């Protein structure tokens, strides 16, 4: 009785509280590259839906438009119909292989420069610096009690986050409808509910992912760093701290006091301070490193100040690192890029691209599909001839109305009429106008002489006088005579 209860040890938690990252402002070649890529990405994202493209009176004049309502996809001079969706699939496959290609050639360049999470996190971190000051000021503010001034600053900062998030979420919907019209409808409250819902959701996700979760998205949510771990090899570029040159690290003072016994690293921690994901690159390659190169900029500046050669932290391949450790000069990276792996990726990537271009260049803008009536499969007419009924779909994939000639091949003596005309006008060929950019459905009756046996034949359509613009579809003609 009354045994003293055992002392419970603190349970090991799988959850680690986020350490906020207050990355320092830095300037340098990679920072400037990052600015340029960010500007380009944001400009492309925000400006693209507003580019106009004249397609005549029958199609929308927005250069890039995913018209879900009419199931069309417009991209400058290219118009994709639903049955041509393989173009989009091909582009997606190219994007995937392109990512492999880039990764095998220049490492995690996508993560460091072009990934939306990186771009928007960078933007939000810049807002942090703008409102709260640089690293030290932000650290101080973080630890400061919640005074009115701190609350005001926070509210201002979050308001700016919200404006950026709203601009981000809001721009997305312009890809799916005429941008100026939708813009007006949006602000007057007459846009579709799905538009508001989309803007709401994307604003919220941008606000949360870009404003608050930041590097946690890369480390915990994104699958790509984990795939890349498998994709990188000894010839892929990574940000490398050259420990063989830097270690043992010592402060500048100590190093000057004992020349020769210390490495180049002066342990200034600048590489940690500027890192947008808050890692210490000197601990080696890690999943949190997005290889943006800001630590290289920081280290290069310090090396310049202490009069040592740049590149203590630098983009290097594992192979380079080994060579350098052994005292050999590093190989040129351009030479490393051309190796079987990148060549295979590039060949596949370019092959798909060329195939898509070829298909794009040779595709026909006229289409025909035929569905035969099966119940009844044939009708005997009073004069003994046999009638079969078909539903034809004539596709006009050009931005103007076109006249199409429908004819029958391989059914001697056949005549046809459609449900929009009198039976007495039955003829061996019919001409119908198909509206611009539309599919016209036509119910067609084909009559063949009594002697006709069941057989295969073909419907053929020819658009105006355009030689290449034709299509054909096989069909079956049934008759009481049975198979020939």
């Amino acid at each position, binding site marked *: 009785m009354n045994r003293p209860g055992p*002392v419970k040890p603190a349970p090991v938690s799988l959850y680690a509280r986020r350490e906020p990252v207050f990355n320092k402002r830095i300037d340098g070649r990679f920072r400037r590259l990052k600015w340029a890529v960010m500007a380009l990405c944001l400009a492309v994202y925000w400006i693209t839906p507003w580019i106009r493209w004249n397609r005549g009176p029958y199609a929308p004049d927005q250069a890039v438009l995913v018209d879900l309502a009419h199931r069309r996809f417009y991209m400058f001079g290219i118009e994709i119909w639903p049955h041509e969706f393989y173009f989009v699939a091909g582009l997606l496959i190219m994007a995937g292989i392109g990512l492999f290609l880039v990764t095998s050639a220049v490492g995690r360049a996508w993560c460091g420069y072009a990934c939306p999470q990186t771009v928007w996190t960078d933007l939000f971190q810049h807002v942090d610096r703008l409102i709260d000051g640089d690293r030290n000021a932000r650290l101080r503010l973080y630890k400061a009690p919640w005074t009115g001034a701190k609350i005001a600053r926070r509210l201002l900062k979050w308001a700016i986050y919200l404006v950026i998030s709203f601009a981000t979420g809001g721009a997305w919907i312009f890809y799916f409808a005429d941008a100026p019209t939708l813009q007006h409808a949006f602000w007057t409250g007459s846009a579709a509910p799905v538009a508001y819902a989309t803007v709401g959701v994307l604003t919220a996700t941008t606000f949360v992912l870009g404003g608050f979760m930041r590097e946690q998205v890369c480390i915990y949510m994104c699958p790509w760093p984990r795939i890349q771990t498998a994709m990188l090899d000894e010839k892929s570029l990574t940000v490398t701290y050259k420990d063989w040159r830097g270690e043992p690290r010592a402060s500048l003072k100590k190093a000057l006091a004992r020349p020769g016994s210390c490495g180049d690293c002066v342990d200034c921690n600048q590489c940690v301070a500027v890192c947008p994901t808050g890692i210490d690159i000197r601990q080696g390659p890690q999943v949190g490193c997005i290889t943006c190169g800001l630590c290289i900029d920081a280290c290069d500046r310090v090396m310049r100040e202490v009069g040592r050669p740049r590149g203590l932290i630098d983009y290097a391949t594992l192979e380079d690192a080994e060579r350098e450790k052994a005292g050999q000069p590093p190989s040129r990276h351009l030479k490393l890029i051309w190796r079987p792996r990148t060549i295979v990726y590039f060949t596949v990537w370019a092959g798909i691209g060329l195939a898509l271009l070829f298909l794009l260049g040779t595709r026909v803008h006229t289409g025909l599909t035929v569905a035969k*009536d099966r*119940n009844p499969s044939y009708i*005997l*007419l*009073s004069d*003994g001839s046999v009638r079969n009924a078909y539903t034809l779909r004539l596709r006009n994939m050009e931005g103007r109305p076109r006249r199409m000639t429908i004819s029958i091949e391989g059914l001697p003596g056949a005549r046809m009429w459609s449900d929009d005309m009198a039976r007495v006008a039955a003829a061996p060929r019919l001409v119908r106008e198909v509206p611009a950019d539309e599919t016209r459905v036509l119910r067609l009756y084909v009559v063949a002489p009594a002697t006709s046996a069941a057989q295969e034949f073909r419907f053929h359509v020819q658009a105006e006088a355009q030689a290449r613009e034709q299509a054909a579809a096989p069909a079956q003609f049934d008759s009481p005579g049975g198979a020939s």
Partner: protein
Amino acid sequence: MADRKIDEATQTETVGHEWDGIEELNTPLPRWWLWTFYATIVFALGYVIAYPALPGISHASEGLLGWSSRKQLGGELQAAEEARAGMRAQIAATPLEQLPAKPALMRAAVAGGAAAFKVNCVQCHGAGAAGSKGFPNLNDDDWLWGGDLRTIEQTLIHGIRQPGDDQTRMSQMPNFGSDALLTPAQIQDVASYVLVLGRKEHPGASSGRGKDVFATNCAVCHGTDGKGSRQFGAPNLTDAIWLDGSSRDEVVAQISHPHMGVMPAWGTRLDPVTIKMLAAYVHSLGGGEAFAAPEQPQDP
């Protein structure tokens, strides 16, 4: 609990059982799980009160909301009916003759007619309206009583040989055989002549004799040339369509004791708009005739 047993390794209480030296830890459920569980209990209680749930002897409890699947279906049916009401009103207001000139209305009528056909007409005329022996094929261009919209509607409303309907289409072919109006030999001869008319046999002595029998007994309805009469619903005997079969036996049977088709008068069972839509559908099957058109020229 008097004797709490604590697991050494995890410092967690056990449930006190032991199986082959293995003990079960009494790890408490997470708080969120428990609250979710309690919430489901509360929800279930509310559900039982609000919806029919508790079984009784003859009825289940009705629930405070008064919901039933039957009522829900009724509501859905009514909503569907209301959604169609506008189009039905327009069809009702449009004279049948003008229906083909309004494509949207005509399409709606044909679609509605196709649905009504599937319910009321397929039993005799077949799902594709192709009919069968004795039941006319509505797809072809042969019409016993006429094939324009108005005539089809009239046939639908009053039926064919419908007892008790004074406007029904009525005609009667005498039982030439069973009533002994013709001798078996005469029947064979006139059958020969009909088969020659229908280009099923070549002329011969029998058909020559049959021609006279035909002129005396049959021409009054089927016409001297055998082309039939829509006034009496008398079939055209010279075309390729044989409602009751084209073999000699079948023709002889039809002369001896004719089969006379009966179609119900749908005017007493279906509302006028549905009948209008049915007429539009049957007319659209490929054999529909234009109004006031003389004999349609055959495909040359």
